[in-house]
């Protein structure tokens, strides 16, 4: 990313202070986001198994988020340090989620969801009726 210092020479649209997104890029990003929204809604209607459906929906959301960050938020043309900040924040959030998930199963025996009822099935799907 050499445009951190020499923004002026980077692009015809540049006017000194910051990168200016072209109309083509703006409309292209907006259009792609709309199309991906339609795809993600339609993908839910196809049964691929719960986890694959979830993974697909999250993958589409990640692509959409990347488009927004790179083009709407100008991060592609922006200072690298801003990308470092954002990625750092996301990594911190990932640590947060990851450690919480790792830890959460440790105390299941001690959790009583309903004080009026003995613990029947603390984790997992509800019991199958026979």
């Amino acid at each position, binding site marked *: 990313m050499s445009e951190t210092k020499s923004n*002026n020479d980077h692009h015809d649209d540049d*006017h*000194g*202070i*910051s990168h*200016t*997104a072209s*109309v083509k890029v*703006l*409309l292209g*990003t*907006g259009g792609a*986001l*709309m199309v991906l*929204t339609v795809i*993600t*809604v339609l993908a*839910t209607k196809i*049964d*691929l198994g*719960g986890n694959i*459906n*979830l993974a697909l*929906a*999250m993958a*589409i*959301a990640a692509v*959409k*988020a990347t488009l*927004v*960050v790179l083009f*709407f*938020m100008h991060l592609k043309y*922006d*200072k690298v*340090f*801003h990308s470092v*900040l*954002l990625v*750092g*924040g*996301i990594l*911190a*959030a990932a640590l*947060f*989620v990851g450690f*919480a*998930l790792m830890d*959460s199963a440790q105390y299941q025996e001690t959790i009583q*969801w*309903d004080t*009026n*009822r003995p613990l*029947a099935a603390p*984790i*997992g*799907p*509800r019991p199958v*009726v*026979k």
Partner: protein
Amino acid sequence: MSQSDKDKHDDHGGHGHGHANQSRFIQHHYDDAQHQFDSGKLGIWLFLVQEVLFFSALFVAYILYRHHRPEIYSYAHHYLDVKMGAINTAVLIFSSLTAAWAVRCAQLGQRKGLILTLSITIVCAVAFLVIKYQEYSHKIHEGILFGEKFDPCVSSGGGPLVTKRNLCEGIKSSVVFDRGATYSVATQPTGCLDAAKIDHSPLQPGIQATCKVAEVKFTRDAKGNKTDGAARDIERCEEGYVGGHGAHGEAKGKGPKFPCWTFSANPNICPTGPAVLVHYGDEAVHAGVEIRPTCDAPGPVVNKEVDAATTLAMGKGGTTHEMPKTKHELQHEFSMGPPPPHTNMFFSIYFAMTGLHGIHVLVGILVFLWLLFRAVRGDFTPDYFGPIDYAALYWHIVDLIWIFLFPLLYLIH
């Protein structure tokens, strides 16, 4: 704008021109417009990272709960309207586009374009909140709320529910024993059987059930408290509804607190002929329906996960639902039954996430209104457009969070 055009060219050379040809909003403690812009941009990026971490706490709650209680999510998401969520997603993406365009207009000194794009962004943001308001008010009306306030009038499949606190007005549900009439749930959604529709043709042993119809009516007393009226019989039917254990009138603090949807039929009310006994969902058998061949002799009990319509069909035509069901049918039937325990947690998380996001949208509207005012006043020039850029960046993060919230809350398979 000619002032700022000159500015733009002079910018390259250096900054020895003093403040005469600069935007009057460039503060004296910055070297130049670039310095001020970069400082602000660093600030807004730090704020956005903080926003990511802020929301991540709610995502942790969502992920942990979904990990441990997946059945709650697959039940509860039926309460959400995908169409509303999808429209809101599109509205927000479009507003993000216009916000990004507003930055471009400000950078190029296009004042009219800036005013237009800011206005569209505000209109879209308001439209988002209006749709959200409609969703929220529907949920408030139906009792689909967080924590203890979760007391829905209908199941996630749309079927009526008798709930513990009966905050829903009117006739909530009934247990219907059909004797082969042309009765259908679709035409009589409240379970109020029209006397004229009862089929008086002779009973066919083994197929038709004795006619038993009861409805449970809930009304408000003078103080506005909900009271449940006695089960009312129609035609020659006897009382078919027994409160069951824990349905209502239960002493506070005793027994299962939540949820408590119980239908229970009294076996003694079917003195003649084969009948169908419906035991609809106690807390151990969430969506289970017991079907017995006769009332007098309970006989082998068949447990089925069926909805109200299926129950009626069984009363009419015996065991016609023995065909193996597809995954979708089973899922649908499950969604018709009463909620699994702790479904209220989904809505605690739903309202926390969408509520916090909604507050962000509200703040965004206020910020953009202020920027619109300044744009009309002509504050923004190609060397001073920072506030537009910062607000747009904030708006994109709000959009970004919704991009994840929409599939996580509305599009659960």
